[in-house]
């Protein structure tokens, strides 16, 4: 029963959700909203599982003085700091001038932006590897990337200023992006859509059970 009940719920809800997409009549018209609300409620309750797990693991690390346990102290301290400030400031904790928003704007956001900024360097190193002309396909990729990148900056058009308007590098870059690139991406999208249909049917029919464990 531990597996049959989730499978039955998945099957019934799956079928109902497919059906509701084609039926505008109440109660089908509201089902999407209801299920979204229910999911949000479950999600909000489940966040405590995650938060408590994080605290538990950090506390274990501190107690056992495992390697880098000092960072666990930072996690626990930051967790309680933000939770306590949020509770003290009440409903308006997100308002301007609150300590919570100060921490968010001047601590969290810069840290987050720093992580995001690392992407610039990773793009460079990944591009270096991807664009090495090892075989025909990689050389093709290198050529396309070269012209697209050059076509996206003003110097591309400056270098090809002697050509008529529609034949400059910016036009070539747009053509590569709008036709070969878009065609390839749409082919992938069609495959993804069919893959989702197939996976959904496997789950609804109970053929796919590995997400429940033990299969």
């Amino acid at each position, binding site marked *: 029963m531990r597996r049959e009940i989730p499978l039955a719920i998945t099957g019934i809800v799956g079928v109902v959700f*497919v059906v509701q997409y*084609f*039926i*505008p*009549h*109440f109660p089908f*018209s509201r089902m999407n909203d209801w299920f979204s609300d229910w*999911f949000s409620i*479950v*999600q909000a309750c*489940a*966040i*405590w*599982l*995650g*938060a408590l*797990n*994080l605290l538990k*693991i950090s506390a274990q690390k501190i107690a056992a003085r495992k*390697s*880098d346990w000092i960072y666990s102290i930072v996690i626990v301290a930051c967790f309680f700091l933000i939770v306590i400030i949020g509770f003290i400031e009440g409903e308006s904790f997100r308002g301007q001038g609150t300590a919570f928003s100060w921490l968010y704007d001047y601590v*969290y956001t810069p*840290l*987050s932006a720093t*992580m*995001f900024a*690392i*992407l610039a360097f*990773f*793009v460079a*190193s*990944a*591009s270096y*590897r*991807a664009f090495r002309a090892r075989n025909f396909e990689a050389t093709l990729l290198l050529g396309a990337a070269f012209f697209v990148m050059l076509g996206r900056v003003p110097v591309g058009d400056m270098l090809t200023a002697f050509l008529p308007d529609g034949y400059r590098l910016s036009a070539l870059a747009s053509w590569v992006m709008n036709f070969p690139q878009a065609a390839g*991406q749409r082919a*992938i*999208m*069609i*495959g*993804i859509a*069919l*893959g*989702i*249909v*197939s*996976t*959904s*049917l*496997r*789950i609804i*029919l109970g*053929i*796919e059970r*590995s*997400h*429940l*464990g*033990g*299969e």
Partner: protein
Amino acid sequence: MRSRSSISPGWTLLLVTTLLVCIVAAPTFGQMPDDGVITFEDTVQVMVAAPTSLIATDHKYDDGEKIDLQWVPSIDDLPGIGTVVGYRIYRQDDGGVAEVIANLPAKANHYRDENTELGHTYIYSVAALTDGAEFMSNLTESISPEREWIDFSKRYLFLIALLVGGAVIYFIEIARRGKKLFVRKIAGLEAVDDAVGRATEMGRPILFIPGIQDMDDVQTLAGLTILGRISKTIADYDTEIFMPVSRSLVMTAGREIIKSSYQTAGRPEKYSDNMVTYITDEQFGYVAAVDGIMVREKPATVFLLGAFFAESLILAETGNYIGAIQIAGTARPAQLPFFIAACDFTLIGEELFAASAYLSEDPKALGSLKGQDVGKAVAMVIIVVGVLAATMGQAWDISSMNSLVDILKTIFSTS
């Protein structure tokens, strides 16, 4: 002696004052005041024609909550002249007082009232607005919204879904009867056993990252179904797995999957809840933590299977930097190039969804992949027919080809 034709000073003063008033008032014609409020005192009224042919119709295929309005704009609503500054929609609910329900810009000729109630009767009118006056259209017939059971505007989508779904179920049934089906090899999935074996030989852990979305995302679900297969191999090989997650529900699902795999492998004592840990819901906080784990623990194998966004390359490049063998898969086309550049194997789009069936070698699951191929074959045929028809229709102006293109557009249009 006074001339007979001369004008008295009183009349002269009146004329000058009138002229001054006209000069001062002239720039205000056709302009909205700065504060956006029309005041009758500040402006000069301009007569314009009212909108005409106002029609209210029940919105088709809804739950009785929408009514569509259409009208012909005022003939004075002309480009560049600007005497009509907008339109105002009035509604009478069950014979009550007419209330303003919307203000629209100039040139508007339709509106959808999405706040109607079943059983109520509505009468509408539309007013053309100038700077300070309203010119009302005729009233509509009274109308009540109606609800429908079937949305026939989605009929083609329903037929396509029926075709693809039917093909999937048909091939599942064929496979169930024992017919052998050919499924092409997927390099990334062929490498799973080797990747797990490598970690076992090196005595280093395996890192599994199921993306940063929750359980309501089909990519996360696909990632977890693959985890179900991989964790069995991991439990058989008695290798260590670590799965940091960014969603609590994914944590509980992941734990359940890995725990079951260890039980199936006959090693329940080897399982620990610490194998799956929640980090944070915040995207870059999660990335920072996972990058730290990668650099400190140096896993031999990294699986990146699920929904990824900007963090995809940060994670994959860090994995590449520590020398881990990486198998990635996502259904987000924008992130695929990053995985292809930084990982050893990448499951492209549909391969992510096929992975679980492929790894399980269950005939029924493999049958579903065959059904998926039918959908692809149909899509290919339609694309070729559509491209040929559009090309021939435009190049030689063949009306039948143009009609065929229109039919295909109607069938496959998503809007």
